[in-house]
């Protein structure tokens, strides 16, 4: 069942001197509960597309719908957007950070705090509710950011290179965690990444974009046997490396086109 549809989306950034065409004629659909990845050369408009999906600004042209409703017009729609850095509010405790979205929606304080404790446990953190973000390591902070995003029970999770600022080990652990939680909660997720391996290990489908202006260049289905595995196990599977080679070549080809 189609959950999210992007039709004929164009986006151009205007400034007084220049007009930068970031996205051109993007059409794609994502199913309910599906995990997809966006990959492509730097500057091809992945963040732009994700911001549009998050409803941060409308596209210059085209339509984005979630469950057949225009996202800009649907004010109740909750979307989880996780940025490359955690952007935890340094002046709030971990608990206040996690319950931020609930507070803005005027939810009951005690119920929110209870949910926060549960979510912190779910993302694999010890009780750190009363601490401040600066007392936590980078990996722990990114877990808190994940808990904050999940707290409002979003219909869709948008992840913009959320693991790229982490060390390799934390990154692998968090991949497994996010993958597990998405499947458990049955959430639809979009991941932007520079890491082909991460895209293969985590997603059901991979969208490859070409640059300047960003277009949807190719779509890859991740084979069934990989999808069943956790990202960590998938990285060790034999079909992983063959798909990796294919995508790598395509990406290389794209970057050659750009330089020549």
């Amino acid at each position, binding site marked *: 069942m189609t959950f999210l549809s992007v039709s004929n989306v164009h986006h151009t950034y205007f400034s007084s001197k220049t007009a930068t065409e970031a996205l051109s004629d993007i059409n794609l659909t994502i199913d309910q509960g599906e995990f997809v990845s966006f990959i492509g050369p730097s500057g091809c408009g992945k963040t732009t597309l994700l911001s549009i999906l998050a409803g941060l600004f409308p596209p210059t042209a085209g339509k984005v719908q979630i469950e057949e409703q225009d996202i800009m017009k649907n004010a109740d729609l909750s979307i989880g957007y996780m940025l490359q*850095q955690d*952007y935890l509010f340094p*002046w709030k405790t971990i608990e206040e950070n996690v319950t*931020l*979205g609930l507070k*803005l*929606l005027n939810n009951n304080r005690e119920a929110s705090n209870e949910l926060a404790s549960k979510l912190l446990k779910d993302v694999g953190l010890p009780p750190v509710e009363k601490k401040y973000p600066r007392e936590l390591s980078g990996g722990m902070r990114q877990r808190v950011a994940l808990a904050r995003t999940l707290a*409002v029970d979003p219909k869709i999770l948008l992840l913009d290179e959320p693991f790229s600022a982490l060390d390799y080990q934390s990154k692998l652990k968090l991949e497994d965690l996010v993958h597990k939680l998405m499947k458990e909660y049955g959430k639809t997720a979009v991941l932007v990444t520079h890491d082909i391996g991460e895209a293969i290990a985590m997603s059901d489908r991979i969208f490859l974009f070409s640059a300047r202006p960003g277009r949807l260049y190719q779509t890859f289905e991740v084979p069934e046997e990989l999808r069943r595995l956790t990202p960590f196990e998938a990285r060790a599977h034999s079909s992983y490396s063959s798909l990796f080679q294919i995508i790598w070549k395509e990406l290389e080809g794209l970057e050659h086109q750009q330089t020549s």
Partner: protein
Amino acid sequence: MNINKLHEEYKANIRKEKRWVRFYQLLILVSFFVLWEVASSLRWIDQLIFSAPSKIGQLFVEKIADNSLIYHTSYTLFETVLGFILGTLVGTILAAILWWSPFLSKVLDPYLVVLNSMPKVALGPILIVALGPGMSSIITMGALISVIISTIVIYTAFRTVDSNYLKVLQTFRASRSQMFKEAILPASFPTIISTLKVNVGLAWVGVIVGEFLVSSQGLGYLIIYGFQVFNFNLVLLSLLVIAIFATIMYQVVELLEKKLIKSE
């Protein structure tokens, strides 16, 4: 190696250094007054102009006894605290309005620059005529002197808050006032506090000049009066009182800083 012992040593060293710093600070203070007294009694400096700590002390006792010092000091203190609070508060509110409406802020930009570069104390005579030669014009002066610079500095802080915090809030569908309350204002607390620190000094300038002009009550009046009757004991006594209270106000702001900025 014993970590505990090393840590104890480290702490002892810090304490020792702190004691020496305090010692030298005290030494400077005491020698300043002693030197002043000696220089004055040996006539190295003109007693009439520079007075002497003992004379100021005498005068202090007298003025405390007839209650006039406390009267004038409390008058000035009240004006300064009020001018200071008003200046910062109005400055913050104006900054919030500018943040709220980027269009308005563009329109007002050149006027802010003009108002900021103008010496506010020059408005004193006009204020006194408009508001009457009393407390209200002095308080206005204390506030006016700091309000525009506070507005500019705090508004700049509001604008430079990392927009990614706003993005996070936007995904939670926060309204503009929620964004202000949850991100803009708390992220700018450090700037607001440092503005407070500057404003302590500015408010004293505004109020003392105001009292010079109105010349009826307060420490500023005592200074002007002492000057006119050539009683420099009185001028210096007032100056010392100002120095003490300005320092206390500054300390209160620092206390507030520790309370407000717990995350750092």
